[in-house]
């Protein structure tokens, strides 16, 4: 793995002046042209207290790509995903070893403010979790707290349109977000994440609570979103990973040193196509061909 030189902290620092901090411009300029990774994960281990949930993960997430994290339940996919926006900071016992570089900046550097990270790295959760507010207020919540000054109506429309939900809800923006169907709720959550104009969107099994038709909607949507955003998706559905992702990381759980718990390990990280047709690890092959056991 190529070690990327850590750049000085730019916009992630707490001391950033918000007034001049235009979201789109705040992304480092060179990313559009260079091959540089959005995230560079180096030898990452995640602990809950003494328990090491995941160990020694090394992978790179590239710009405007869909990266899938797959593997059996409990192998630490969610745990790894929640490191990318420092969501694990909310768990008192959680801590990491190793490095995650975000556009070359060490995400866990002491000066980095997790709130600034989360404004750039949005998240869609496994279970749709719209706020008990109107559809409009769900979408405008993020921009509002970030101090957005432009036309909120336009922003809400744009986000809902990008999330392929506008036509279904445009006549009832004042209704509660909770009144929508499960699939619509999840698209509302995606719109909500898009509205803060993030750089990356993390999705934790976004379709696991949805029926096949709603799942299809979301998968199509991800292909559209790929043009503007970098997406990392956790799924335990291999077909879904094969359908939507460019890169796939396959995790599994192995009995740990103390023989009492299972620790997640990254088995293989490769182009999705190669992963599913010609995996280099036997465990991957067993899993993708359904012989996992």
């Amino acid at each position, binding site marked *: 793995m190529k070690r990327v030189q850590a750049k000085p902290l730019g916009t992630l620092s707490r001391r950033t002046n918000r007034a001049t901090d235009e979201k789109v411009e705040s992304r480092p300029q060179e990313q559009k042209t260079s091959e540089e990774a959005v995230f560079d994960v180096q030898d990452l281990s995640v602990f809950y207290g003494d328990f090491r949930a995941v160990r020694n993960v090394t992978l790179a997430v590239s710009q405007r790509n869909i990266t899938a994290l797959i593997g059996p339940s409990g192998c630490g996919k969610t745990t790894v995903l929640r490191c990318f926006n420092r969501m694990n900071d909310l768990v008192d016992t959680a801590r990491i070893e190793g490095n995650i570089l975000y556009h070359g900046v060490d995400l866990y550097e002491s000066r980095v403010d997790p709130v600034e990270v989360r404004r750039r790295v949005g998240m869609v959760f496994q279970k749709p979790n719209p*706020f*008990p*507010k109107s559809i409009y207020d769900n979408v405008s919540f993020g921009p509002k707290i970030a101090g957005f000054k432009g036309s909120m109506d336009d922003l809400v429309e744009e986000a809902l349109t990008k999330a392929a939900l506008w036509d279904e809800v445009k006549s009832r923006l004042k209704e509660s977000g909770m009144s929508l169907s499960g699939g619509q709720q999840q698209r509302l959550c995606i719109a909500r994440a898009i509205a803060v104009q993030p750089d990356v969107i993390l999705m934790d099994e976004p379709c696991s609570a949805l029926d096949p038709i709603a799942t299809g909607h979301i998968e199509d949507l991800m292909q559209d979103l790929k043009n503007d955003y970098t997406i990392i998706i956790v799924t335990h559905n291999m077909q879904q990973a094969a359908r939507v992702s460019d890169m796939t990381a396959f995790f599994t759980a192995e009995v740990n040193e103390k023989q009492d718990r299972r620790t997640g390990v990254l088995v293989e990280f490769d182009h999705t196509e190669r992963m599913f047709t010609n995996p280099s690890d036997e465990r991957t092959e067993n899993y993708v061909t359904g012989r996992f056991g």
Partner: protein
Amino acid sequence: MSNAAGGLLLELEGSPARRRKERIVRGIFFALAAMSVVISATIVLALIQEAVQFVGAIGVGDLWQRGWFPRRGIFDVRTILVGTLVVTGIGMLVAAPLGLGAAVYLSEYARPRIRKLLKPILEIIAGIPSIVLGVFAFSWINPQIVDRFLCGDASFFNLGAAGVGVGVLVTPLVASIAEDAMRAVPMSLREGAYGLGARKRSTTVKIVFPAAISGIVAAVIVGMSRAIGETMVVALAGGATGGSLFSADYCQPGQTMTGAMAALAIGGDQVKGDVSAFQSLYFVGLVLFLLTLGLNVLSGRIVRRVRKKY
């Protein structure tokens, strides 16, 4: 019917003795439920009957004049109603911010270890007998808070001290109900907000608080009911055991409905023999009951209306 089927039918019939037992148990529970309804209804009917007799005896017009002096046959309901409102108002001015603040802290900010330490303390405060708080109200709250900061020249007994004392009394109640409501807000909503780059403060104010609003309103209203019904603190710190002139001045002694009832019932006002004074007890009790009932109905309404919206 074949023999085999006949045997099955017999099995399926089960045991008549068990069915009889079931009926008896059901009957016992029905009787218990009915009894509590009958007792409540009897109390309310007795209240109404005596109250009507009281109003009939002194005349409706006499309920609106010159203060509350049962000994002299002067029954101005406004006096004690205003006394109750002043005490309750001051009580809630203390209890709502303190209680809701404590609830926000315990539910959103306190680390588990600190919460484990603080919750029992809250319960200890809730367990202080109200007569102790009453003593505390006139001996400490009055000189140190009411007289020093609010009045300057307060009487030894006054409604202000009683109000603050009542506020301290209901704070744990408000805190505990509101905290339950906020902790019931699913973690996933908070995570949704944090995931959008919200800080703790906006998450609490804009997500958790509105999501728990029905429980928070209920907490305040239950606190209010409790404040209205509180007797001991007022009887000790509010003064005016005998009677009271109409006044809303919280620096002066005053009488609340509960205080007036206590004075009447224990005979502190030396009216034991006076029939209409004795009956006024029922009348005030009825008003108190209606007030609390109204608040409970209101809180139910608010809770339902807010729920419907989301």
